[in-house]
């Protein structure tokens, strides 16, 4: 147990290999890795709750929590968690025991499982599956089932209705997400997250910005954030499918939502922003010390928090959409657009760019994306030329006529 | 090392449970769930034979993926039919849907 070697392996983010070389069993090293990942994620959520409240408050020109734990309210989430822990766990009469109790557990499990394939630093990834992105999509699909469990197990009509709406939204927005994700997979020629990060000499958000936009919107809807948060808005359906949960079980749903948002930010960073890459900084070696992984981890964290800030920003800014607007937007706009985008990128990549270097490829694909986006907007504008959009109901026109008649 | 016969026995057991469900249940939705069990058993058989006999060729996997796709389509259409029948006859019990009998 050489202390210097241990410290060096910690700085180089190589603890697993050091432990293996010392002689620890493989399964103990795996267990340490799994527990580190799960613990770090959950502790980070506490910080994220504070961050969200402060940022939204500042955007709304107020201060936010500033009483608990000093001037900045740093211990506010701790007091929130203590409050939730101390509440009584009330089970509604007639509730189905097994689904009711299984739902909060399953939703946290599903939110944590997806973190296994996110590369946080060069060489530091839970498991480098050759179908990494597909694994993430499958687990996100499974987590949709937990809403039904929660809604049915509560023995409450409103919970059931909220669960149906939540499931409809989640299942609908998976389609453009999957099709938009196919574009970077196509460009990187692999479904493995590590391969996608390594293939981003130029980050994919610059090469295929339209695909990044579609994925971002679908991710907003998948995690249930504003503007797609009618699942749990107090003014819509009184907290939706988790009405009947109190105390720690409600905290599980809360935790799962924040974990999901953090995961979507990390996923976006890995797929579109180049993961831990930053102009070769992740390969830096100073003398004997291979400091690249640590710098890569810092770069990755910065990018993730930037994207998370954009999530919070959108929540503080945009109003909520109605449920029929939500589904219209998905099926009549996002799905056709993502399909056309995939087709265009595939054709351009195969036919015209088979033997071009990276910069030419990136430039041509970016121009293609912008052209597709511009053509879409022109089509929408042309359809709207007489004020007949498909989404706004006739109520507004009738109201105008009624007012004009007086 | 798991012998191939274990997987095949497991698939056969799943298939017979599904067979019992299809023949013995009253509710049509339950019959459809048992049909899904049958299709899953078949898929396990296909993948077992792929893995043990021809892992370098993609025939077994491709066939299994097609079975998956057909099962999904059949479940969707079957459930749509059940919902439509429920609207018209107000019952989904298979024994009571006997308008065409005699």
């Amino acid at each position, binding site marked *: 147990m050489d202390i210097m070697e241990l410290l060096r392996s910690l700085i180089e983010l190589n603890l697993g290999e050091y432990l293996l070389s010392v002689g620890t069993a493989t399964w103990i090293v795996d267990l340490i890795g799994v527990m580190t990942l799960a613990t770090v994620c959950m502790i980070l959520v506490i910080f994220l709750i504070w961050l969200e409240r402060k940022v939204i408050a500042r955007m709304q020109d107020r201060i936010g929590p500033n009483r608990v734990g000093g001037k900045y309210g740093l211990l506010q989430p701790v007091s929130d968690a203590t409050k939730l822990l101390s509440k009584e766990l009330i089970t509604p009469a007639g509730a189905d025991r097994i*689904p009711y109790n299984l739902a909060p557990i399953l939703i946290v499990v599903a939110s944590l499982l997806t973190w296994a394939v996110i590369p946080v630093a060069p060489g530091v990834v839970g498991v480098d599956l*050759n*179908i990494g992105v597909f694994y993430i*999509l*499958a687990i996100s*699909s499974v987590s949709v089932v937990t809403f039904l469990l929660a809604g049915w197990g509560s023995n409450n009509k409103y919970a*059931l209705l909220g669960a*149906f709406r939540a*499931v409809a939204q989640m*299942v609908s927005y*998976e389609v453009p997400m999957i099709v938009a994700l196919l574009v970077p997979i196509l460009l990187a020629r692999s479904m493995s997250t590590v391969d996608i990060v390594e293939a981003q000499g130029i980050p994919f958000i610059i090469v295929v910005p339209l695909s990044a936009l579609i994925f971002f919107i679908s991710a907003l809807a998948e995690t249930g954030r504003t503007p797609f948060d009618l699942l749990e808005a107090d003014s819509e359906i009184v907290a939706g499918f988790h009405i009947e949960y109190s105390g720690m079980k409600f905290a599980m749903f809360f935790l799962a939502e924040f974990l999901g948002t953090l995961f979507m930010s990390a996923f976006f960073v890995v797929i579109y922003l180049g993961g831990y890459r930053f102009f070769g900084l992740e390969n830096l070696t100073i003398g004997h010390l291979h400091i690249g992984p640590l710098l890569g981890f810092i770069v990755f964290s910065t990018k993730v928090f930037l994207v998370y800030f954009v999530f919070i920003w959108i929540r503080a800014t945009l109003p909520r959409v109605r449920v029929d607007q939500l589904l219209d937007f998905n099926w009549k706009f996002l799905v056709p657009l993502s399909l056309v985008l995939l087709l265009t990128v595939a054709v351009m990549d195969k036919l015209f760019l088979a033997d071009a270097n990276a910069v030419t490829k990136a430039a041509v694909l970016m121009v293609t994306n912008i052209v597709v986006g511009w053509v879409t907007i022109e089509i929408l504008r042309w359809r709207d030329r007489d004020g007949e959009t498909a989404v706004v109901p006739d109520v507004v026109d009738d109201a105008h006529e009624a007012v004009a008649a007086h | 090392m*798991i*012998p*191939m*016969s*274990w997987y095949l026995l*497991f698939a*056969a057991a*799943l*298939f*017979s*449970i*599904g*067979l*019992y*469900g299809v*023949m*013995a249940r*009253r*509710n049509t939705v*339950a019959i*459809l*769930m*048992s049909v*899904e*069990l049958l299709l*899953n058993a078949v*898929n*396990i058989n296909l*993948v077992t034979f792929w*893995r*043990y006999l021809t*892992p370098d060729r*993609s*025939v077994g*996997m*491709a066939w*299994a993926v097609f079975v*998956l*796709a057909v*099962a*999904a*389509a*059949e479940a969707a*259409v079957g*459930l*749509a039919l*059940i*919902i439509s029948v429920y609207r018209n006859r107000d019952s989904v*019990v298979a024994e009571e849907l006997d308008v065409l009998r005699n």
Partner: protein
Amino acid sequence: MFEQVFFIFVAVVTLGFALIVVTNKNLFHAALALMGTFLGVAIIYVTLGAGFLAMAQLLVYIGAISILIIFAIMMTRHMMSAEEAAFNSQAGLSLFTAVAFFVLVAYVFISYWPTTPADAMLATMTPVDPAILENSVVALGQSFVSPNAYVLPFEVASVMLLAALVGSIFIAKPRLKEDEA
């Protein structure tokens, strides 16, 4: 040794869930047990080295078909549905048939299993070169678009899925009152 214990455990749990599916009166519990069965089958696919198919199973069966079944259960239940009997009049005969079928197949597998050295590879899982298994996803993808392989069934399957999509939406649409008049 560990693999065998793991396989037996997963197989027994999956068969237990399957039994709950075919015997439980409460349809919602049966649907939940069906999801458990699908999860068990996905784990079996992983032990067989078909990771892609396992993820596809999770995505399609648990993420879509199970939800569809639960929606259909919700939409087709009476207000008091707990008193319905689960089995119809031919339950005893079908139990006998299913058990007889399983016993016949198990007998064939166990007693007529080949034991000659040439077929010894069927007795244990041949350690396949991991590169072949890694490459299986790529080989699958190429087989779906290669004209010498399965591009035609692939295209036919996509048309079939489109037909199923449009057809099921049309069949399940509620008729408007004016149509019935």
